[in-house]
Structure formats: structure tokens, C-alpha cells
């Protein structure tokens, strides 16, 4: 089931399905390892403000607005 990244609970592993944003941000995200088809873990989501993802071995903070533009699928 597709879901916005901003709606995912902490400690969940998700697969990125699609990123709806401009090319500039898209390239920046992919240079950080965030692109369609990758798995990332949500390590912080307070349901307001930015979220923190674990991508490869680094933590990436993402504004809530950006997180809303990323659609994901939960993986177990």
C-alpha cells in the first residue's frame, strides 16, 4: 500500500516508490542515496517538523514538506 513518507512510524523500514519533486531536489536526494527503489529506515518522526532517515550508514534530515512528496511502501 502506497503511503507518504511523512506518515510512517519510527523504526519502520520502507521502500521508496516515487519522488514527486523538481529535478534539482531529486538529484540532491539521489546523491544522498534517496531514490526510487531504495530501502530506508525512519529513525525519527515526531509527527510534526522534519524527519530523520537512515540511508546507507548515514542519517539524513528531511523537511516535512519534502517527506510528503515521497511515496513509499512498507517492507517487513
Amino acid at each position, binding site marked *: 500500500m502506497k503511503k507518504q513518507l511523512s506518515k510512517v512510524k519510527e523504526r519502520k523500514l520502507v521502500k521508496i516508490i516515487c*519522488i514527486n519533486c523538481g529535478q534539482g531536489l531529486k*538529484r540532491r536526494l*539521489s546523491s544522498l*542515496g534517496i531514490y526510487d527503489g531504495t530501502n530506508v529506515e525512519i529513525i*525519527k518522526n515526531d509527527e510534526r*517538523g522534519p524527519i530523520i532517515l537512515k540511508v*546507507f550508514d548515514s542519517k539524513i534530515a528531511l*523537511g516535512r514538506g519534502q517527506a510528503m512528496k515521497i511515496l513509499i511502501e512498507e517492507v517487513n
Partner: protein
Amino acid sequence: MKRLIKITKNIKIALAGNPNVGKSTLFNTITGTRQHVGNWPGKTVGKKTGHLNYKNHLIEIVDLPGTYSLTAFSEEELVARNFIVNEDPELVVQLIDAANIERNLYLTTQLIELGASVILVFNFINYARKKGVQVNTEKISQLLDVPVLQIEANKKKEIGKLLDCVILTHNKKKSKNQINYGREIEDHIDEIEQLIKRIHLPKIYKKRWVALKLLEHDDEVMRLIKKENNFDLVFKKIHKIRMHLESIFGEDINTIISKARYAYIDGLTKETIIVDNTKRTSFSDKIDSIVTHKIIGIPIFLIMMLCMFIISFKLSEPFMGLFEWVFSIIKKNAILYLNSINAPMWVISFSSEAVIGGVGSVLVFTPQIFMLFFVIAALEDSGYMARVAFIMDRFMHKIGLHGKACIPMILGFGCNVPAIMCTRSLDSKKDRILTILLNPFMSCSARLPVYILFTSAFFPGKQGIVIFGIYVLGIIVAIMSSLLFNRTIFKGLSSPLVMEIPPYRVPTLISLLIHMWERGKSFILKAGTTIFAIVIIIWLLANLPLGVEYASKQSFVGKAGQIIAPLFKPLGFGTWQATVSLIFGLAAKEVIISTFGTVYQVQEANITSVLQNVFTPLSAISFMVFVLLYFPCISTVAVIKKETGSWKWALFSIIYTTVVAWIMSFIVYQGGLILGIS
């Protein structure tokens, strides 16, 4: 006898890498103090170069901006890539965080695409091992066909390994290795290479790279091709290829290429890296669960900021005392000496008041500025600053600012100069300029003495609450201005928050000192000249026409005061004395107090009683509001000019702040009168 060092060869190398991989540590360890800091021509991106002699070679090192990629989207990435293309360094040394290899190799693939001769240097090997990551560097070297080293970037004795490798590698033939993107894409890259064969390109551009960039729709390279005659046809064909690939993969071209790069990296790391997932240390995570906590995160941050100010002010106090003492001694002796050689009165006055007094009044603040730079560097290098941007992003976003803008705004309470210099951490130019323009409304420590003097004269017992109110007013004006600017001159959303949260690291003393020195020195050099010029102008105005008493009613500044004073009448302080104090306050706001002493010809201790005669409680508040908001001091103006790269924004800031100050004071004073307060 001095031993002559015979230099047989010059080698130019560039240092590349992701942010937070210890690049500046490595740069400092290699070059020590033999470095030069400046800006890339026409950019606000900092440029560091250094050099050293090693085994008869003069090695020149250019520190490229820390980047994750080499697209044409950010200034930093463009600077890095243009340097590699246009300056053609013999070698590009990429520093890699051994605990995060996949992401770091993404940049490597692009360096290789660009045709650079790369040396990979793995840093933080021990840290990675603790996390359970084992790297087979020989295998990586073999597969990528580039030299690979392991070092600890902060250890001087390990640098020899790198330098030996540089000398050994630099005259070898370039590796012919290419990143293979899979057959489908490779075929089309070949096709585009054939297409652009007919186009005459500068020799420095590798055909394969240009082809790939055209496929990726890279604006810079597209512009390059647009200069050619038959670009239209080429563009059309490339567009067709792009459409074709996008329809096969069902994704846009950037995602296709990114995926291809990561697929290549994945293949590489599967053979070379072993990760033991059970061995995770979570020290960083434990700290993060506290400092980024949704409730206690912000209070912790505010306490940290308070500690930062207390520490830096306490540490700088003895130095400030020392500076003051030194300047008073110099002044005394200069006057004595000039008297003894019968120098004319104006020479004595010029040297003591303008040169020594004026420059001294600004230099007295340098210890404080340096200490703040030191503490900021510690917070930055430790990794805490990224957490601050994270916890403050929500609030900052609401008022139209970027999360990272929080630090410069808070620093403004100490001194606007280091605060404005710290806006460099913001990625977009719009966010930077906006943060710079709002900064002067944060009430710096130089304004505090003015508030203390006025509140002690008019609000004994209620000093704290009044001063607090003034600070809050500054914040409110900044927020209102931000909302206003976001709707007018800076339309559009602030740039998105996408930021790495680096692991915590213990900063090294040497890198903190170098950071502090770099920023402090650039303040003294660049701002110093502007400050000096203005101090001289003010002195001249206070002493001309010849023969008048310093800053008296007859002097130019006194006359100017009389002319301008009526403007301040509706604000409740339309006297020439108050006006002259405000004019002198342009240099530094704490100068306002000593100027009151001069214009009313009283000792500093007696200023309070004079003020009680010429001000009312209401006009005192109005005056404090004006001092809070008007004209950022000349050091700040000089830094605004330096950091925005033009006088335009400096002038805008001067006019905007002064107009806002006038309006706010007007509202306070006239509003107060209407309410029957006097």
C-alpha cells in the same frame, strides 16, 4: 647555513569528498599553516589552497567544496567540477568515510566520469571497524583501477603515505577505467558520443562525460553545446534517446542514471565490504534521542546557547581588559611623545582620538568575536549544529527561514559580525541574504550597555523586564520582516531541508584554532579597512571646521546633529546631543554612552543624572527602541557587504533598519503620549 631545497617538480592536486568526512582535518594536517583562504572568483564559496615541499616536489593542494555529487545545481558542486575540468589538476584525492562507503563512492563514480586521476583515501577506518564494517581496500583498488589508501586524517605521521602515493601516481598514465552503466544505457552513450563528434569542443572535455551530461540534461553542458552551429539537431536526437530510455525503464532519466551508478557501486561493495550488523554502537543514537527530543530538545539547545555566550564572554573578558589597557597606554604615550616634539594640536587629537581611540574601540571587541568563533567551531565540528537545524526547522520554516538559519540568528545576540559570517552554512543564496538582512535586529552585546544605562536611570527595579522587552521586540521585528520579505523581495518557499546528520565527533584543538583564526582574520582584514575609514570620517566631522572643540555644537557633526534633530522630535529625543550620540553610535553602539559624556561635558559616572533631565521615561524607551533597530554598526555593514558581495544589500540594510527604527520609535512615543504616559 640554510639548506637549499631543490624542487624538481610541481604537482597540483585537488582534495575532494563528501561533507563531514574529515576533509578540512586532512587539509590542515597536510598543509598546517601554509594555507591561503579566499573565495572562488565571483562566488561566495570559500576556497582554500595550501602547499608543501615533499621529497623535492612542490605539492599544491586545492581544497574543493565538500559535495555529495557533481551536478550543476549547486554553486559548490559547480565550483568543484569546473575546477577539475578547467584547471586539470594532476590528481584528485578523494577522502572517503569508511563507515559510509556506498554514499561516498557516488561522488567517486562522477570523478571518474569526469576523467580525473583519482586517489581514494579511506578515513575513520577504526570507527568503521567498531561499527562492524570491514573493507578490502586492495580489492577496491583493483576493481576501480585507482590507488586506495587507509589513513587517519588527523595523524601527521600518516600523511607521508598519502604524499608518497601522490608522487608515485602523478606521472603514471591515467587510468582508462570507466563506470559501466549497463548495456542499454551504454549503447546510447556511445550514440551520443558519435553525435557530438562533429561538434568542436574544447579539448579539456571528455567526450564520454559530455555525452552523459547531455543525456542527464545538465544545464551547464547544454549551454556549452548551444554555442555550436548545429546544436538544434543534436538536441532533438538526444531528446529522442532520453524519451526512449525513459519509456523502457518507466522512470525519468536522472533516476535511471542514479540507479545505474548505485547498481555499479552495489556490485563493487558486495565484493569488497563485509558488514557485521550485530556490532552497531549506538552512542550517537543515545545522545540524539535526548538532544533531538521533541520536548526537551529545544530547552537543551537554549541552555547550550546560553553556555556558549557565557563561556565566550568569560574567556574573552581578560583579553578585552588587556586590549583596553594596552590602548590606553599607547594613547597616553603617543600624546606624551607628540607633545614632546611639539606636534600641532590636530595631529595629537587625530592620532589619539581617531587612530588609537577609534580603532581601539572596535578592536576591543575582537577577543569576544574570536572566542565566539572558537565555540561555534567546536559546536560545528562536534556535529551538534546539524541537530540544531533539525530541531528548529519547524519554527524557522513557519517564519519563512531555513532551519540552518537558527544559529546565525542566535549568534546575533552576541555579535552580528560572526553571526553574519556563519550564514555561509546556508545553501541557497536567497536564504543567506534573508538571514543576513534580519540579523541586525538581534540585539548584540554592544547595545546592552545603552539599555543598562537608560533603564538604571529611568526604571530602577524594573530593569530586567524592560531590557527583556527590548530583546523580544527585536525578535518580533525580525519575524515580521522575514514574513514581509518572503512576500515581496524573496518570493517563493525557502529551500528545502535536506541535510546529513553526521555522527558526533570530538573536535581537534588545532582545527578549532585554525577555524577561529581564519574567520577572525578575515573579519579584521576586510572589515578593518571599512571601519578605519568611517572612524576617520567621523573624527573629521567632529573636529572641523578648524579650531572647534571636539564634537561640540559648532563642529560639523554638531551642526549635522542640529539639522537632523527635528527628524527625531516626533520620537521624543529631538536634541542635537542625542542626534550626535546616534551618529557616533554608527561606529559601534556602545560608543553612544561615551558620546553623551562628551556632548554634555560630564564624566561618564554623571551621565545618568544628565539623562534624567533631558529624557522622560517614555522618550527613554523610544530612544532604546531606536538604538536597538537603527543602522547596524559599521563592522556589521562591512561584513554584510563582504558576505553578500555587493554594496547593494549593505545599503538596503542601512536604509531598511533605520526606517523601521524610526517607525517603531514613533509608534512607541506617540502611542505612549496618546495613552497618557510621559
